[in-house]
């Protein structure tokens, strides 16, 4: 008789995939369900159906700290940052893709190297810089670096080289269109899908950033969402319902973005890694 060999049967595979799906989804479900229960309910039992304490939890949550303030602060940083990464990323990528100039390869190597630098390790220098520029308690240190987003440049340069032919640039140039006009009116609209993909990633990265805002923003009314979330445990003590609700509110925007754009996000991830 042959030795029984281990093989994935269709059933094992299905069960494993279902188990992993539950493992990914259930923690979020518990958070959403518990955010509608009173703290007492949460401590007393394992809840599987939504409760009726959502409004109470909301009032408790808001009475201790204004979550929407953190939400608003995060938007104020994330939206301009994202727009800068998209516009300047495309512009810089276009410069590298379609012009020939001296030291181009060395300069591009600098862009690539800057992608590999573990940026969190220069946080002390970053803090000192912000002190010098008088930018502590300001959002500018988190918005301006959007201009120099190396990953976006890398990704969009590849896209421009593939999809924009030289004749598309030459024609308007002969017509007398300025170089920046060509970029704004012809190149940028053509590569918009790629710009949008990178913007989604940059949006998520900026929304989730924690250590930078934790260090630079010292006034409580300036705190971003992640900074607020990290302080919640000390603030709410045993108000579990309020804590679950705050976590739910912090998680929902990303879930909405993902629900709408998941195809673009996964495609972007996939093409980015193939290069």
């Amino acid at each position, binding site marked *: 008789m042959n030795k029984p060999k281990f093989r994935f049967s269709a059933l094992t595979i299905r069960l494993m*995939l279902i188990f992993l799906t539950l493992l990914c989804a259930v923690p979020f479900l518990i958070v959403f369900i518990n955010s509608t229960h009173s703290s007492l309910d949460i401590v007393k*039992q394992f809840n599987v159906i939504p409760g009726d304490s959502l409004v109470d939890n909301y009032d408790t949550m808001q009475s201790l700290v204004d979550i929407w303030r953190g939400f608003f602060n995060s938007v104020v940083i994330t939206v301009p940052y994202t727009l800068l990464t998209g516009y300047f990323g495309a512009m810089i990528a276009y410069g590298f893709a379609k012009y020939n100039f001296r030291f181009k390869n060395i300069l591009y190597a600098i862009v690539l190297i800057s992608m590999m630098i573990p940026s969190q390790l220069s946080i002390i220098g970053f803090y000192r810089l912000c002190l010098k520029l008088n930018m502590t308690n300001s959002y500018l240190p988190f918005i301006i670096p959007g201009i120099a987003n190396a990953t976006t440049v890398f990704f969009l340069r590849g896209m421009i080289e593939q999809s924009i032919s030289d004749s598309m640039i030459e024609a308007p140039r002969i017509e007398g269109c300025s170089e920046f006009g060509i970029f704004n009116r012809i190149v940028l609209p053509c590569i918009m899908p790629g710009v949008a993909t990178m913007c989604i990633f940059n949006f998520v990265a900026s929304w989730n950033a924690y250590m930078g805002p934790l260090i630079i923003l010292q006034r409580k009314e300036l705190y971003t969402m992640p900074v607020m979330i990290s302080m919640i445990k000390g603030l709410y003590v045993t108000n579990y319902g309020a804590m679950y609700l705050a976590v739910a509110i912090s998680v929902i925007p990303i879930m909405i973005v993902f629900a709408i754009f998941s195809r673009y996000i996964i495609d972007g991830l996939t093409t980015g890694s193939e290069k």
Partner: protein
Amino acid sequence: MQAAPESQARRKKRSKLDRGWYGYLFIAPFFVVFLIFGLYPIISTFQLSLQKWDGLMPAVQIGLKNYARILGDQVFYLSLWNTIRIWLGNAIPQFGMALILTGIFTFYRVRGKNFYRAVFYLPNLITATSVGLLFNLLLDGDNSPINQLLVALGVHGAPISFFMSKTLTSGLVSFVQWWMWFGYTTVIILAGTTTVDKSLYEAAMVDGATKSQTFWKITMPLIKPTLVYLAITSFIGGMQLFDVPLTLSNNLGDPGKAVLTVSMYLYNQGFKNFNYGYSATISCVLFLFIAVMSGFAYQAMRRKDGAYKL
């Protein structure tokens, strides 16, 4: 509009040369901002590692004293070991799981592949501080949802005080990191396999190769560059781990500093104890460690690659 007498090709070449300097204009914003917000902080961090600075008084040059201190700093070694252990504890199962899923999605017709890919990837997008707090809420305390579940299932020893045990806390940080990253790793490896020519599989199958032989002999060598890339970026990210151990534990990496990572230690030294100089030194040493280890790993994997070809 005047008609140019030169040939079309020459004209094109000249106009490109003429406008070449516009390239500098287009790329200038990157370098201006990178110099200020990217390069300056790096240089400044290195300078600070040779100084003593409390953030109020002017910084004082102290030479290599900070480096001498770090050599004998037991807490630094502990935090480095914690960081490496937590990384190994999530990277190994993460790559294992991703390879299993890659095998499944490559060799078996699974309905809803895109759905699974999306669901497994979702945790990676969620704010790490929220994820840390979320799992803390699910696990911490005798009445936490997970403990209620364990008690209901009659698990021996439940309710478990997860955050009283060093081993459990460290394991949980690894688990949460695994939970956040296995989907990402799977998506990237799967992308790597799509570049593998399908006819190679068919040829192997015709020759009588089993699925696992095909996987190890054809898929693995071809996705090796992807795996090397993932391993190195995972290491660089893992060595900077900060958000999850902070919010999952009590913000201090307790019990007994079991999940105090290097990044948490350098944050505490700088922004809680106001030893900015020493904090910068920790950054520099960790930077060196990451650079040297990544370099070694890259070389080792390339050499092995060469051996393959012989």
